[in-house]
């Protein structure tokens, strides 16, 4: 048995003194759900990550991976955290040739930095996670979180074509490759996408890019819930290829009032329709939308982008107020919205094209009331054929309310986790098993 002092010393040898924090005051600011790690390491290479993992296993210290730290409040409250692996030093482009329309970058690179690089070639990585673009690629892929653009472009699960991953058994492996089509072998990458670092540490990501649209705009209008539901159903079934379609309640609209040209009083909703492409495409999309929804306001360019950025901010995890994500068949979004809007003061965002409804309890709401709200929303989502996951909330709440809800095939998932992380050091129990 290797003692803690010795393990910390070995960590230090692996990454260098400058890249390891162990002092109580220093690690306190890296706490997850109020729980500080024993040590925080900032590895500078894949080899260093692999070495740290080996040492953690030998020293029996659990490991949590951190990118920008914006969504560590996801998942169940962590068990004691031994080593926090902060990947922000792994932040370079590995390969990028614009005509391939793919990019390979290290996991610690922020989405904002990557967008700048590929944006110079009028391309973009169509990730728009909750919160902001300071999120890292590794974080976005590990959470598989999505934003308004998913309707058009899909989720990280659909866009990631290859990865390099460090396993707790010491190997650094490759999944997939750099071609957009690839069926050579099992699609191992799916083990690591969206599994909160519970099976391996994502080091490098290759993803499909998309051309940046020539123009983009947001069309928005305040409507009754019934009108909003009908408009969304029409748009989702149409051939207009919109980028996004969100319905937000008056609480959310109020929070966006600085950037929105429309307001909604209690009981009404705002529909936000994202359109993009060549200018002629936009004109046509706008014409059709206006035929359907009278009194649409239109925002262009930076104003349009500003709305989405702020709207994503609404659904970012804070760890303070509860945020639940319900997932239902798309036609049930209005029913799910109705359930959320019935809760006094709750902010609600519905993604009409994806069947996702995010609802957040009012800040300062009593725990018992929040719990009742969450319980009713989860029950509603299940009745509608879906499920609901608590994305963030105070740790006391997470102890009371099962973060993941019922998880089918938990036995198989437990075996999967054991296959890749037999020492059970990764993830600190935040993921489903």
């Amino acid at each position: 048995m290797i003692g803690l002092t010795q393990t910390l010393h070995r960590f230090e040898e692996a990454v260098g003194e400058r890249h390891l924090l162990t002092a109580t005051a220093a690690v306190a600011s890296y706490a997850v759900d109020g729980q500080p790690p024993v040590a925080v390491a900032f590895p500078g290479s894949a080899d260093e990550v692999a070495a740290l993992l080996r040492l953690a296993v030998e020293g029996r210290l659990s490991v949590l991976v951190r990118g920008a730290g914006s969504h560590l409040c996801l998942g169940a409250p962590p068990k004691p955290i031994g080593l926090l692996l902060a990947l922000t030093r792994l932040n370079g482009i590995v390969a990028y040739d614009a005509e391939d329309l793919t990019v390979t970058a290290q996991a610690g690179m922020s989405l904002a930095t990557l967008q700048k690089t590929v944006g110079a070639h009028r391309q973009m990585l169509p990730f728009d996670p909750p919160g902001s673009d300071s999120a890292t690629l590794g974080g976005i892929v590990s959470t598989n979180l999505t934003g308004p653009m998913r309707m058009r472009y899909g989720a990280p699960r659909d866009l990631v074509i290859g990865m390099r991953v460090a396993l707790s058994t010491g190997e650094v492996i490759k999944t997939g490759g750099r071609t957009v089509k690839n069926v050579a072998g099992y699609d191992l990458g799916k083990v690591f996408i969206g599994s909160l670092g519970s099976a391996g540490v994502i080091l490098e990501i290759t993803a499909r890019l998309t051309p940046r649209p020539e123009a983009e705009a947001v069309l928005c209008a305040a409507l009754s819930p019934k009108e909003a539901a009908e408009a969304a159903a029409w748009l989702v079934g149409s051939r207009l290829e919109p980028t996004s379609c969100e319905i937000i309640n008056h609480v959310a609209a109020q929070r966006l009032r600085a950037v929105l040209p429309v307001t909604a009083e209690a009981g009404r909703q705002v529909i936000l329709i994202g359109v993009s492409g060549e200018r002629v495409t936009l004109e046509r999309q706008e014409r059709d939308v206006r035929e359907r929804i009278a009194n649409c306001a239109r925002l262009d360019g930076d104003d349009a982008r500003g709305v989405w950025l702020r709207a994503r901010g609404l659904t970012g995890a804070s760890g303070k107020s509860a945020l639940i994500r319900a997932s239902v068949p798309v036609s049930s979004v209005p029913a799910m919205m109705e359930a959320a809007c019935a809760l006094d003061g709750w902010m609600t965002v519905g993604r009409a094209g994806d069947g996702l409804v995010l609802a957040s309890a009012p800040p300062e709401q009593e725990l018992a009331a929040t719990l009742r709200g969450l319980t009713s929303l989860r029950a509603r989502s299940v009745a509608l054929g879906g499920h609901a996951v608590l994305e963030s909330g105070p740790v006391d709440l997470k102890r009371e309310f099962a973060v993941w809800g019922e998880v089918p095939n938990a036995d198989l998932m437990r075996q999967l986790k054991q296959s890749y992380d037999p020492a059970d050091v990764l993830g600190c129990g935040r993921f489903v098993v």
Partner: protein
Amino acid sequence: MLDRKLLKSLERVVGRQYVLTQPADLLVYSYDSSTARGMPDAVVLPASTREVSAVLKLCSQHQIPFVARGAGTNLSGGAAPVHGGLVVGVSRMSKVLSIDAANQIAVVQPGVVNLQFQAMVAPHGLQFCPDPASQKVSTVGGNVAENAGGPHCLKYGVTVNHILGLTVVMPSGEVRQFGSTALDPPGYDLVGLFVGSEGTFGIATEITLKLRPLPEGTQVVVGIFDTLEASGRAVSTIIGQGIVAAALEIMDRSTMEAVEASFPSGLPTDAEAFLLIELDGLKEVLDARAERCAQICREAGARTVEIGKAPADRERLWAARKSAFGATARLSPAMLVNDATVPRTRIPEVVRQMQEIERKHRVRIAKVFHAGDGNLHSNILYDRAHPEEMERAKAASVDIFHLCASVGGTITGEHGVGSEKPEYMSLIYSPDDLAAQRKLKRLFDPAGLANPGKVLPAETETTMAGAHA
């Protein structure tokens, strides 16, 4: 040969007429559309999830391997029972269970034929995006097993991007539900892992799939080139300029000759390359995009460029393209199908080197490319009657694998590894990578009964020893 008691048990499960054991019957299930062969011990044709489960339980009890089979259009040996055992045909499970237009979801059994299904959802203004060239006969179950692509996956993604849920009979016979009708079910992505597992993780007996609105309009642009390389250059430029095409397909002269010999479609057999560009979307934008593509083709040195307006043109050209595989079979008694895929910028140089491989091994290669994806089908023609010719064809195929791996590509873009390519997996994956993949196989199929001999290379003695240590 299976013992009589097992055969009786199988008959009790599926009915006597659905257990085939006559040599003539077994022969037709002994191969698929690849060169792989293997005689099954018996063929069973179950009609329900319950029957599949009972059949696999018997396999498990008797330690008999099984191979699921849809229409048998597999191009890598995936449906061939190379280790014998039972073939489980899903042809009797061919019902569309529901089409939910409001939710853009359908639930189907695995034996549903892709194109017939497309015809059922089209009146709702919807489509199922995967469109492999075999779609006239290939099944949705097979599409799921192989993570099938097709020309239009350039814009719409491959099968895994369109599957929401699966009812899976595990190799033990246990029935599980993966995924649902809602996105992002909590936990590991079991649907994503199962799709593309080539029948080695179990049998999907119900498939919940995502549909998408049909595009409002389509338009084709055709470029005729005197060199294959120039057509490849045009493709790179189209992608580099940010034009989103629905499909970018190239046929070479050999393929055009084959198509013309079987299905005269007016292809220019005196040219070296035929580039078919399909654009889709709102009708207002198609003309401008088509003109930009035409201009790029001209600048890349196209001999002629044509913008096809009439739907009949589109149908004729696609019929020609999708018949390429079958037609090529007329050029020679046999062919090796290579499906290597490369990053898109490497297409021109790979095409040049492929032509050198042709010369070096004195083989004829009919090339037909999903060029927009970098997916290069090179069909190497040979005659089985001349073993020496077959050896040269094999050598050429191996050279192409090496070539594509060396430029950062992969050994298969959509056909699967099957029984034909496991030995080449090490060109792109390290022993550690393969060991990590093998863990998945052990998870789903610890007894190793589901489609043995496929996907992963046989374990070397040392790793076997390691596993048992």
